[in-house]
């Protein structure tokens, strides 16, 4: 589904990603762990098309198509969703209006009929229950006045409505209390299917107790330095990132 091949990318003159290779197949959950500054978020931003980041080398294929050649909205229509670490507040844009426009835009690109207001509301209410959200959230402007936890849950809620093939979660767990974390995890687990996939970028292992990954990657200094099963996350939690660094040092 997603093939990342030898991606080098950075901001202005600074190279942050120094050759990333990653392949995600349908039905899989991948987790990328790493310390601050390791390049995790840069990878997420490259995938969703933020213009500040320049890709200097390598390619990313999504369903065989060149992802880097697509505008952010085309990536969304192709089936990529990004749950942001810091969702933006958009005063004056009503939540329902925003999400309905987004959904219908994506449906239209797939040649599907647009949903009318009633169909949309019925669908949305169902997804809200899934994530234990209050309906008042939708009538408010997008993310305005939301707590940190509400913003993160709102991202997962949008993901549930837009139903992407690949959900990328950029530190969705950071700053969440345990109840909010569980809600997010329950949401993701319910969305999980054979034909979709998730890439979970996280600093902490805690989320992975609730969303069990198929593959765990450790990132350091712009590279994936180690990949393994879910037990790698536990080991990392117990021994710390220095352990990876040292074991790498020993290997060199």
């Amino acid at each position, binding site marked *: 589904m997603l093939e990342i091949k030898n991606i080098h990318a950075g901001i202005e003159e600074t190279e942050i990603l120094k050759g990333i290779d990653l392949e995600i197949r349908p039905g899989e959950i991948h987790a990328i762990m790493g310390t601050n500054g390791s390049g995790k978020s840069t990878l997420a931003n490259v995938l969703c098309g933020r213009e500040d980041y320049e890709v200097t080398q390598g390619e990313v294929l999504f369903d065989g198509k060149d992802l880097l050649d697509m505008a952010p*909205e085309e990536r*969304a229509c192709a089936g990529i969703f990004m749950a*942001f670490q810091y969702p933006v507040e958009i005063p*004056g*844009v009503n939540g329902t209006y*925003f999400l309905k426009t*987004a*959904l219908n835009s*994506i449906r239209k690109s797939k040649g599907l009929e647009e949903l009318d207001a009633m169909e949309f509301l019925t669908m949305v209410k169902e997804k809200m229950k899934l994530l234990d959200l209050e309906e008042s959230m939708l009538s408010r402007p997008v993310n305005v006045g939301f707590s940190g936890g509400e913003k993160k849950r709102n991202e997962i809620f949008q993901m549930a409505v*837009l139903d992407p093939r690949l959900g990328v979660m950029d530190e969705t767990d950071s700053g969440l209390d345990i109840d909010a974390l569980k809600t997010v995890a329950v949401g993701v687990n319910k969305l999980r299917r054979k034909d979709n996939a998730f890439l979970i970028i996280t600093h902490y292992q805690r989320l992975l107790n609730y969303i069990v990954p198929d593959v765990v990657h450790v990132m350091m200094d712009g590279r994936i330095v180690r990949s393994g099963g879910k037990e790698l996350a536990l080991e990392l939690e117990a021994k710390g990132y220095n352990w990876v660094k040292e074991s790498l040092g020993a290997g060199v």
Partner: protein
Amino acid sequence: MVFREGVREAEPGRKENNGTQDMTQSVQQETGWHVRNFEALASANGVTPLRDIRQGAFERFREMGFPTLKHEDWKYTNVAPLSRRSFVRASGGATITLEDLDGLLPPVSGPRLIFVNGAFSGELSSADTVDGLTVSPLSSVLDGGGDGADRDAVEKHLSKYANLDEKAFVALNTAFLEDAAFVRVARNVSVEESVHIVFVTTDADLPADEGLAVHPRVLVVAESGSELTVIESHIGLGGGLRFSNPVSEVVVMENARVDHFKVQLETDETYHVGSIHVEQARDSRYTSNSFMFGGLLIRNDIDPVLDGEGCESNLNGLFVLGDSQHCDTHTIIDHAKPHCNSNELYKGILAGKSRGVFSGRIIVRKDAQKTNAFQSNKNLLLSGDASVDSKPQLEIYADDVKCSHGATVGQIDTKALFYLRTRGIDEVSARTMLVRAFAIEILDPVRNRELATFLEDLLIRSLEKTR
């Protein structure tokens, strides 16, 4: 009227400033287009009750002349083309149909007066009204139509608030006062429907190099305890040079309430220089909502006088400019009595090489204790070549007041734009969504939802010129 005296005192030296200007201009004025227009009107239109008013106003205009950039109030807005170029005063003769106005009239029910190229069109208008509401061309009131109360109201209020001694364009409008839209709501009558006044300009037979000039006039009298919504539309069809010079006078008596909308949809070669003059009595409430979407150069003066305790005055406005459009709003809110509130919010959306000007003057008289006056001017620049001048002026002579003002200039939030796009919304739609979000503060309080939707559609349509 002590407070009016005060306005003059607050601007000492204004007349001295343009003394020499008057001399040089007066030579040109003897042959200016307005002289020819005035003489034509005078000869075509023998004796009418308005003749003296017109004569006085015309003389006053000749003394003042067109303002120049040297006038403090006209520092940012150059109306030299109006004196340099030549205009013919519109005198009807054009025929249009309601279909021509498709999509330009708000879909609201209520009596409607339509003027086409300065002349009242009985055919297009529908002046059926409820008891206690008069909606009529001024000419028919003066010809003896309507009841005595209407004639009394005209006599008492017409040309009493629009200050032609100080405002050249008010004098010019009054010099050509032949007909007007007249609206009167009787005491304690609450009108549910909206009264709609429409001024249309359309192509006319003109000599080469002449523009078309109209001087629309509105008088609204809301008697005590009454409630009224008035929508004033200025619409341009066809093309060519135009000058639209409207003046509205609104009298809001004790405990009355008037919601006044002004929707400007004129052609891109139109100079629109208009003013609204409001006289408010005790416990009255007036709201002005201005929507400026068309025109080449727009100047809008709105001057409410809060002349009784417990008044509320709300001035809201939104303009969308592209290309080299220019929109200048000058407001003077005169707090003459204690315990009054005023709220002012003007928002501008500017693209291309357009320019916006906002000058908000708030005067709090010595006796006007416990005044609350809030002013805000926010602008969204969609291009690096667009510019805004914002100038708040607070003149406070009382000591127990709350006044505040603020002005902002911003750009589209690129983070928000990106966020919307990552959700599958294309760039143009995402931009439109954010611009609409900026404007929504002005549209949201519009209580009539059909009108609000209509205004929002106009906004979205006018955004096309900003791309």
